[in-house]
């Protein structure tokens, strides 16, 4: 998803950082749609132009933050420690 847009952003990242640091860019395909002060403005313009089709919004100069969702990454959402698993118990 958004492969073309992400490649376009990566190719132009250094240029964006010089001219639009801290602002939000909107990219659709190989088209640079514009630059906005807030993500809401970017969302509004992107949706006005393209409706409910995917387009990329990136904040320029913001290092990608690690996403941490232990409940999903560890598979422990609603884990119940009182229930035994099928795994064989270790023998002493």
């Amino acid at each position: 998803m958004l492969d073309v847009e992400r490649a376009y952003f990566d190719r132009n990242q250094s240029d964006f950082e010089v001219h639009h640091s801290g602002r939000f860019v909107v990219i659709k395909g190989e088209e640079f749609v514009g630059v906005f002060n807030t993500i809401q403005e970017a969302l509004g313009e992107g949706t006005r132009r393209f409706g409910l089709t995917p387009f990329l919004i990136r904040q320029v100069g913001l290092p990608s933050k690690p996403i941490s969702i232990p409940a999903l990454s560890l598979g422990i959402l609603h884990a119940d420690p009182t229930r035994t698993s099928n795994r064989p118990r270790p023998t002493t």
Partner: protein
Amino acid sequence: MPILHVQATGQGQRLNGTLVQIEPFIALQQRGPCVQVSITLEPTVAQALVQRGERLPSPVTGLALIDTGASVTCIDAQAARQLGLAAVNVVQMASASQASTEQNVYAIQIEIVGFPIRIQSLGAVEAELSAQGLVLLIGRDALQMCTLFYNGPAGEFVLCV
């Protein structure tokens, strides 16, 4: 300031099959702080769609788990499809079964059903949650606008925005 006060409830089954009420502190420990939510388009997106003369999709309702361990909010993939959300970014996320997968990011509005509490998540990550009976994990991006009190011994929690 709208305040949501929830005491967890639940039923358990004895060995003979009879149903019994579970103590609130046990129900809260087992299910976690869950609320009924309605997910809609982020307001700016909704407004722009109206300007285009397009119809707004119906909200998706379901159970959300407040997850202070999650750095961002997660929306169930099926719920995102039902709402017709358009991806605005892609992120890498580790999962239990694979090292790392690419997941779409959406802008959404979360409304607590029956309360005037609306929270925006502009970077909700897609995840498979329906098998857990959930449509949403409310993460710290949404909680940064909220106050949350978790009272384990009483089996209660309070959420204010």
